[in-house]
């Protein structure tokens, strides 16, 4: 059995107000401790902002700057430049955001920062919806998922943010899952050592938003990886793809069946989603083979 082996320096503190069993808090713990003390973070309005702590409480041992929802990447860029002018080029600037602040409302700022290749480490906690405001759909919400604003299931696909970011040819884009903590820590470590814009998208199965049991978010995330719904991979310089899990061992249905938001699906819809995942997987293999 592979042991988890990152070093927890207690940079993320208990007493935060994430829901019981929330794997965004779990991922935050891994990321903050892997980045280390020499770091500054921005966080845009999201579950992450709540977890980091509302005034006057903080769950982090590094400074965190609360931004507007549009301006996460722009604020991080500014902080990085300020640090550079202070002669602190090695301080990591983390930009923490949800999928609403990344796929939708913060996309312009992120695209601009990526185009300028700002030296920031952007973390998107992707729970596939506006879960902090009661669970409305975002452009990250997958096809057929029920949210507060798509009560019969979303009729369009999940936006492929990775391909958008790849088009910017930034040094590193990676996916990470709270079921694979060593992989997550290794990717943060790798990103920290690179200069330029790095983006890590972490899948966060949301307990109330997805209809997942309190103790099952890690399991759900693991099934997302093992079914190929959310493959673990890296894209370097926008063109070099590396798959971190090379085999799919679960059906898509085993992943969907964990979640209340897919409970209404017919067998045909499940088949359709499986077919979509199969096609995406083939495309990913093709990309990885071409590196």
């Amino acid at each position, binding site marked *: *059995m592979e*042991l*988890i082996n*990152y070093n*927890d320096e*207690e940079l*993320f*503190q*208990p*007493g*935060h*107000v*994430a829901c*019981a*069993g*929330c*794997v*965004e*808090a*779990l991922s935050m*713990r891994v990321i903050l401790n892997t980045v280390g003390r020499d770091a500054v973070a921005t966080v845009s309005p999201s579950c992450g902002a709540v977890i980091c*702590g509302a*005034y*006057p*409480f*903080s*769950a982090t041992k590094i400074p*965190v700057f609360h931004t507007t929802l549009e301006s996460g990447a722009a604020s991080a860029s500014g902080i990085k430049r300020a640090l550079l002018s202070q002669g602190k080029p090695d301080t990591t600037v983390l930009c923490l955001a949800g999928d609403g602040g990344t796929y939708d409302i913060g996309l312009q700022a992120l695209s601009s920062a990526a185009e300028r290749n700002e030296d920031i480490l952007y973390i998107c906690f992707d729970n596939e919806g506006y879960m902090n405001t009661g669970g409305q759909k975002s452009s990250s919400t997958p096809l057929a998922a029920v949210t507060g604003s798509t009560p019969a299931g979303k009729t369009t696909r999940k936006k492929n943010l990775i391909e958008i970011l790849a088009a910017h040819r930034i040094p590193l884009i990676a996916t990470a899952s709270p079921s694979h*903590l060593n992989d997550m820590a290794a990717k943060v470590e790798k990103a920290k050592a690179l200069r330029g814009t790095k983006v890590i998208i972490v899948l966060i199965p949301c307990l109330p938003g997805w209809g997942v049991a*309190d*103790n*099952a*978010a*890690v*399991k759900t995330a*693991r099934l997302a990886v093992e079914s190929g719904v959310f493959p673990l991979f890296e894209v370097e310089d926008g063109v070099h793809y590396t798959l971190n899990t090379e085999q799919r061992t679960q059906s898509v249905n085993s992943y969907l069946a964990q979640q209340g938001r897919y409970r209404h699906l017919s067998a045909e819809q499940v088949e359709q989603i499986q077919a979509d995942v199969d096609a995406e997987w083939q495309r990913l293999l093709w990309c990885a083979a071409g590196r």
Partner: protein
Amino acid sequence: MQQPPSPLWTNASSRTRLTGTWRSAMPEYQDKPSPCRGACPVAGRIAEWVRQIELGDYYGAWLTLVDNNPFPAVAGRICHHPCEGACNRQQLDETVGICSLERFVGDMALAEGWCFPEPAAAQDQSVAIVGGGPAGLSAAYQLRRRGYRVVLFEERGQLGGLLRHGIPAYRLDKTILDGEIQRIIDLGVEVRLQSGIADAGALRALHAEYDALYLATGASRPKTLPELDYEQPWVQDGADFLAATNAGEACELGQRLVVIGGGSAAMDVARTARRLGRSVSVLALEPDALLPAQPIEVAEAREEGIEFITGAMLQAVESLGDGLKLQCVRVDFQQGETRGTFSVEPVSGSGFVLSADAVVPAIGQDADLARWDGLLDSDGPVVRTDAQWQTSRPGVFAGGDLASMDRFVTQAIGMGKMAAEAIARHADPLQPGAVAANGSEVPFAEINTDYHPLAGRLQPGNLEVEARLRTFDEVQHPLAQDEAIAEAARCFSCGTCIYCDNCYFYCPDMAIAKLEHGYDVKSDYCKGCGLCVAECPTGAISMGQE
């Protein structure tokens, strides 16, 4: 409780917020019993010693093993291993090869010359043990290590009982048996060979000398078949046959043998006879699927060229000048309610004839109860005992085949252990009883199999059939060290903490503290989500209601 917030800056730590108040249930670390342990006749801490093998701590594994069973090398060869039948891993792929791992540790202990730890300080009381088979030796070991004076009386010239006289060398090499017995004697057990306790009077006299007695004289009286004339030179009882051949005496029986019986003893007789160059048929009442012998014994017997005629019985024997004609008939076999009981109905018109030179019945043995007439009550075919293995005479305990119809070697070892614990309590009622394991056995559903990738069992190989038929060398090969470690790594360690830190790392609330040995739940912060329980690979944590 909360510090007043700073008016200027967000420097108040979230630690002041005690999220433990959200909780309705809290995780508890429990050393829960594994199903293998529940099935084990000696209640061995299997998950614990298998884990020690995986970590390369062979000596530690051996100490854990011999806490309950001083015969790991013997049991690792011939135990009927109900542990493997209970193993949770079979619901994922295949059961863990517990028996072969036990042999691995037992053999290493003999090769390295490991000794038992010194016995506890000497106690005033002394105990006499009658019978030097597995039950008697197990009781002697357990009492001696607790500091009692133990005197062991054995009727025959050597210790071991059925292990020596009944189990052929190809299943249990006698040097292995000698090594494990010697280690028990070396603890300071006083042995009186060729010292049987002949009758009730002798037993009463013995009891006057000792604080307690333990009787484990086994089942020495062969059951007999009315159809057979045991006086004939072409009949030899199976137990006598095995005792003689195990002692190296020549076999006088003819070329074509028919062995009657379908149990382990019948397999031992048949396979021994094959090694002595005989052609052998086994005639059993039971149909194939109900043969009482272990399936592996039957399979290996078949490999060795033994013919099986099952679901049939002997009706009469006709002795001709140049051999025997065995009149047999097919039967309808019905298993009874309790172990060992059955009924048979001959199928009319299904008679057939077998030709043979000799017949060896191996249909089981009864305890010799007449010996204790008037002194000890009996319960059907065995001596009556209570739940503490005490007979109707206070201070006299009994076990093994004398007191039970559970006729397996490791059952006898387990009975010896339980009786020793009861005798210790009898000698000193203040002595603490055996510590019961916490809670109920860990079911498969509590094992997170994501941490246990599919991996088939490593079966130790067998000697080639041709080589088997030429010698009495052991059939089953041992596991090599790397194989043993790989097989041990397959164990789920059901209910046993393996200190993997998953609970610590998967807690979103930093509410698990690592201690030097184990973990503590910080009740101030634990929100009771249960992720630690879900991600525990061994089922060692449960949610407890508050």
